[in-house]
């Protein structure tokens, strides 16, 4: 058993004890009721379970939760799909997902949203050339599996957010 503390969507959780083998996915879904983070494969292959980890150095990255113990998240600050909108106000990326009909069944959406948000924040700090944008988006999303959409509208949704504010995201 391990005692863990963490911040989830800005709110402190813990200390709470967890079995060492309890996955972060089950911790979120079964213990905290945060079912916006999905379970897809349990093997780290589809990334529908991915959440954002905000690192102390100010950078962020995504991590699958289905194969990572909750104990590994001790002391970390994470964001889930439930934490993107503030006071009911959707983020630009959430709105763009909707505007583009980016998802269909929506089961993979949390993972794509988290990955896309991390990409936007990374580009805000380290912009890329317009010529490299398509590959940058493709590299970021590759590995996230979607069975409904063929991925194109997800790409278009995040691309349009970037192109709407080129001074922020592009060199």
């Amino acid at each position, binding site marked *: 058993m391990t005692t863990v503390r963490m911040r989830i969507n800005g709110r402190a959780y813990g200390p709470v004890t967890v079995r060492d083998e309890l996955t972060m996915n089950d911790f979120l879904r079964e213990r905290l009721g945060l079912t916006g983070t999905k379970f897809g494969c*349990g093997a780290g292959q589809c990334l529908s379970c991915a959440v954002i980890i905000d690192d102390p150095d100010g950078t962020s990255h995504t991590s699958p939760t289905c194969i990572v113990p909750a104990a590994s998240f001790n002391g970390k600050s994470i964001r889930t799909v439930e934490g993107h909108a503030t006071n009911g106000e959707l983020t630009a990326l959430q709105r763009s997902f909707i505007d583009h009909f980016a998802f269909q069944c929506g089961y993979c959406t949390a993972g794509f949203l988290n990955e896309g948000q991390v990409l936007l924040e990374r580009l805000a700090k380290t912009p890329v050339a317009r010529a490299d944008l398509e590959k940058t988006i493709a590299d970021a999303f590759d590995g996230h599996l979607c069975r409904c959409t063929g991925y194109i509208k997800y790409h278009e949704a995040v691309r349009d957010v970037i192109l709407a504010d080129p001074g922020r995201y592009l060199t």
Partner: protein
Amino acid sequence: MKASRREFAKLVTASGIALSLSRLALANEPGFAARETLPGRQRWNPAATGAGRIDGVAKVTGAKLYASDFRAADLPGWPAHTAHAMLIRTANAMHIYEGVDLTRLSGALKPSVIVTAADLARIGARVPKFYTGDLFCPVGKTPLYLGQPAALLIYESFDAFDQARLALRNEALLKFGAETGPVVERDYGAFRFTRVAGATPDAPDVCSPVKDGWVSPGFFQDGGGPIWARLPVPTGAAYASAASYGEQIRAELDANAPSLLVLDREFETQSVDPMFLEPECGLAWYDADRKNLELVLGVQSPYDAATSVATLLGNARANFKPAHINAHFAYMGGGFGGRDHTPFPLYVALAAMFLRRPVRLAQDRYQQFQGGIKRHAFKIHTRIGVDRATGKISAFAADHVLDGGGLANYSASVAAVSANAAIGIYDVPKVDVTTVALHSRGVTAGSMRGYGTLQTMTALEVLIDEAASTLAIDPIEFRRRNALRTGGRTMAGNTYDVVVRTPEILDRLEQHAIWRHRAEEKARGRRAGSVVGTGVACVTKDYGSGADASLSLVEVDPEGRISIRCDHVEMGNGIGTALANRVAAHLGAVADEVAVAEVDRFGALGLVTTGDPYTMDQATQDAAQRNPRWVPAISSPTSSSIGAHVGTHSASEAARVIFRFGLWPAALELWGLAPTDPRAARWEAARWEQGRLTMPELRPLPLSEIAARAHARKGVTAAMAHSFSRWAWSKATFAIGGQAWTAEIDALAVRKGSGKFVRLDRADVKYPPTVFNRIGTSYTSLCGALVRVEIERATGALRIDRAYTVLECGRALTPEIVLGQAQGGFAMGVGYALLESLPLYEDGPGNGQWNLGQYLIARGSDLPLQGLEIEVLPPLPNDPPKGMAEVVMIPIVPALLNAIFDATGRRFQALPVTQQMLKGALT
């Protein structure tokens, strides 16, 4: 064609169980129903301005929406604690099963409850006919198939469950004895479709399924297969006749006539998994005090799920027989057919009945691979004869063998549908196709996007390409020369009920740059050290199953807010948004509330049903329809690409009633027009423009003003309707407001003002004749594809450089969703052609060891994300919404194979074509 479904009224009477299929109505806080009604009144509705789906906000904010999101604590009135169950499935179908090794379930792994076959026998559980086969393998029998459940283990706490599932993943929990080999069962269905056209296009067919009926061989071999030869069976005269014509067709193909090109080819397709991202899941609670069984499920076939559970428990011992079943149906994380008529809900219900506290049964991905419905693997043997002088196909013969896996499920139906698709878009005067779906020890196969037509049309389009190249005819010209035109007869012998737009599709393909530049691109590839090829394919796919029902309720409140309730379900297909858009065309605004997957909100219609709509005879239908409450089917699964065409139909009809008898009379009052004014009869000329009802020279009226007046004058403000289609819509006449209203519905109830719903008796009902059951399909959509591939010589790595899909789907209710479906269909086609494959037996998913590490579906990097162009043809005048979710996937597969041939010179006759195989072909 789908197998018969349960008979609601008969079943309920027989089981003595009352069915309710949606809500608890106990909620003081957002309960299930409120969460599933989207976007919710007063909430932002992206669909209102065409800028998104009605479920858009819920899905980007992680709202509880899917069955897997709910726990007991989320459901008002339920005990707060959730127990957890797991199915133990067998990975052995060759030895006698000797039971659960209980010594391995000691200590922390010990469940609170174990349910086995013996327990089901003890309580008197009854397996619904559609799922015939032991729900749990009994001790002493060889398992019927790999992945057959042997036991259900239930744990009170999540931690105990979690520890057990981890420990048991690789444990040999089940004991086996002597080797028996696989269980041998007879086939699930065998049919022969034989058509010989008349001497001229207008002459009646000499022989056809529509003219002479569907036939099956009457004899079966010891090993379970049919004997196709024309045998003198006592009851088989119809079969003998068809077989006789069929043998003549085959003899002509065998005659080696020099004027005829005959290609004789084998083609094999693989088993694949639908791989919807949300594994099957359910939550249930049996409240023994109230004898009430509550279910939360995510299925494509809610009506079947609830009635099957009622069958399961309808004869059970008193303390295992609920008095009420209340089923709630959630949004789904994908379906693709794999959640239509799955046995999973039966196990969810059993877990609750044996625990008597809330319990969740959720498959992980290994279990979903092991137990979920699969696509059929096919072995296809085809012979095609083409007149060398004209390039016209003169005869076609094929034999299909489907591996149906362990349970019958939809296998017979898939066999029939796929056989009827065997000649695709073509007009062939002589056709003979046999098909048989076999039992095997593989995981059960059933419905999946394409429903067998993917397999047979892939084989066909590859063969067509070979015929064209053998005769040195341009592949598109060859298709054009042989394409079935509007008014031509399908291989069943009927004409399509829709315009056949093949010529337009072929023209678009021919004119596209990918096709025109194929030679230059090939040369460019050579210069670059790779091989480049371009492939084409064109297919047609039916939408509808031949007995489809639609139920809807539409309401307008005094403020002009619209709500819609419908029995079809949401699995990503956008049915909710399509409903809202279709109703908006009649009522002037997009709904504030849409609730899908509701089957119990239509009590005012008082519907009853008997018989099987797919097989009933005319006299039975004629007698049954005298009861104005009777309909051939009450509710259908959301499958067969029927969402747009069927799922929204009754809502459209209900909205028309509201407009005609509620809003229009109110508008006349507001405009001050007397009923005798000639303009009062011109309601069909009125138009909605930006939320206002307009007529020339009259003040535009906002919906809210009209709705308020309609309520005030107690006009029709809500309507619920039922529709039925058997390759044509039923029609009936209803008396509303003293007028006769004839529409494509067979049941109607209306509400005036804020009163109660009043059922209206129909008159002069006209159901499509039962002889229509002989039709293969009469509703069809078309799709063509071009694909250009570039293959690296050294590695065999294939890249899809560019692709173009052109389709027609009538009036697109939500164009962006049509586009998305086409893009998704492309991705699924790529996966099927190049990546996905499941071994059928011991090495396959039935062994419980499969996950996405081994099973590869298309990722973004496998697709031409910037190089895929999709064109949707504008609808024809008066085109209805047509199904398109399946047809968009199908041509991608043969187009890829044809492109690979163009690039490599190798014609692959089995799927998938992997990088390794391509490397082998290039070295």
